[in-house]
């Protein structure tokens, strides 16, 4: 009876191949290159094959290794070459529809490789080791890809974590109770940011951010009443910030700001949910116009 190994296969395979060096007489090694075959149902096919192999090998002792790429290695402790030939024939028949199974009889380019554990030991060991190395490389690549994908995650499209949701809930509660409106200025240029802040600080609570992420964090922890949001920011553009804000706070009062007088930008901003648009320079009249507009909806609270 052959034992089938389907977990940590490559490592176990190399381990057995290494041990084989000491007692390799009367051992036949077979490598079926099933990874080369076509078909979308390889997994089920290979599971069917395992029963064919066990039935065909009768009482032969040994192991079958089902690798991660579906290649099969059989280490059989037998001198009976006719059993091995019959097994090859059965497996070739199983894959009758696949041209690769019939293209060449054996060897690396073909459907299978038959090794004599004495005369071909080195080649067999190399074939086993190659599987382990390939698996380790694939694992390494998978990790690298995962790391790259994680670093490319767009925080603008991520859902709130439990902590963020709780902070946002508290911020909304504070917004409903506060006496003075709060303003958030998201602007990467320090001079423009400070100019707007200085002009608002006497009458309003002000927060300011130099980039999109900082702005988002301040928005969802303070729930400001009005946001002055620059379109060109160093990390994400202002539209992405606007979308993130509107998605979570449809009533948000966001005014886009820019140094470019571009009608397409205005249209885009308004379509995305902005309540207004200021083309620089900031002037008292432009800023107050939007604060007044907001005030019509903002009812001062009494203590």
């Amino acid at each position: 009876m052959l034992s089938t190994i389907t977990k940590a296969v490559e490592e176990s395979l190399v381990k057995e191949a290494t041990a084989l060096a000491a007692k390799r007489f009367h051992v036949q090694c077979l490598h079926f290159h099933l990874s080369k075959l076509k078909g979308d149902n390889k997994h089920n096919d290979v599971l069917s094959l395992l029963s064919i192999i066990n039935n065909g090998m009768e009482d032969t002792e040994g192991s079958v290794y089902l690798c991660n790429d579906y290649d099969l290695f059989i280490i059989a402790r037998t001198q009976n070459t006719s059993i091995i030939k019959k097994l090859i024939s059965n497996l070739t028949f199983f894959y009758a529809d696949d041209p690769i199974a019939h293209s060449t009889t054996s060897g690396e380019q073909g459907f299978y490789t038959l090794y004599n554990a004495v005369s071909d030991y080195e080649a067999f060991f190399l074939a086993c080791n190659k599987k382990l190395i390939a698996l380790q490389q694939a694992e390494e690549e998978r990790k690298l890809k995962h790391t790259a994908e994680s670093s490319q995650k767009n925080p603008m499209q991520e859902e709130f974590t439990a902590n963020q949701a709780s902070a946002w809930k508290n911020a909304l509660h504070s917004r409903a109770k506060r006496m003075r409106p709060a303003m958030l200025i998201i602007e990467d240029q320090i001079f423009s940011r400070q100019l707007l802040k200085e002009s608002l600080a006497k009458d309003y609570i002000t927060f300011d951010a130099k980039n999109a992420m900082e702005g988002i964090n301040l928005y969802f922890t303070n729930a400001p009443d009005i946001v002055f949001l620059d379109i060109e920011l160093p990390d994400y553009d202002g539209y992405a910030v606007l979308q993130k804000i509107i998605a979570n706070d449809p009533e948000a009062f966001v005014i886009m700001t820019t140094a470019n007088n571009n009608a397409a930008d205005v249209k885009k901003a308004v379509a995305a949910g902005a309540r207004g648009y200021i083309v620089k320079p900031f002037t008292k009249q432009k800023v107050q116009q939007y604060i007044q507009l907001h005030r019509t909806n903002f009812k001062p609270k009494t203590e």
Partner: protein
Amino acid sequence: MGQPVDLTYLRELTGGDKEVEGRLFELFITSCEDAIKTLEANCTDGENAAWRKQAHALKGSSVNIGANVLAGLCSKAQDLFTAPSNDKQAVLSSIKSQFQETKAFLKGIAK
């Protein structure tokens, strides 16, 4: 020839507060100096996104303080982000010269 900076809008926003005005002038000057260094570093042949971004940012600050000539030059620089380095160099040279004039004007007021 007119003044390099029209402070009308800025003074409306600051309410004429001289202390705030002085702080803002300093901020404008230092941020312009940094921006010019970045433009110098990105004065390359062909498309340069960092050049465009920096020119755009400098235009925003300039127009906000009322340095309209400087803002106009920055707008031109912004449009030249795909131009050969010679063209970028020429507009950068004008920006530097205009900035010196603007800086002297602001320093003069702050005294």
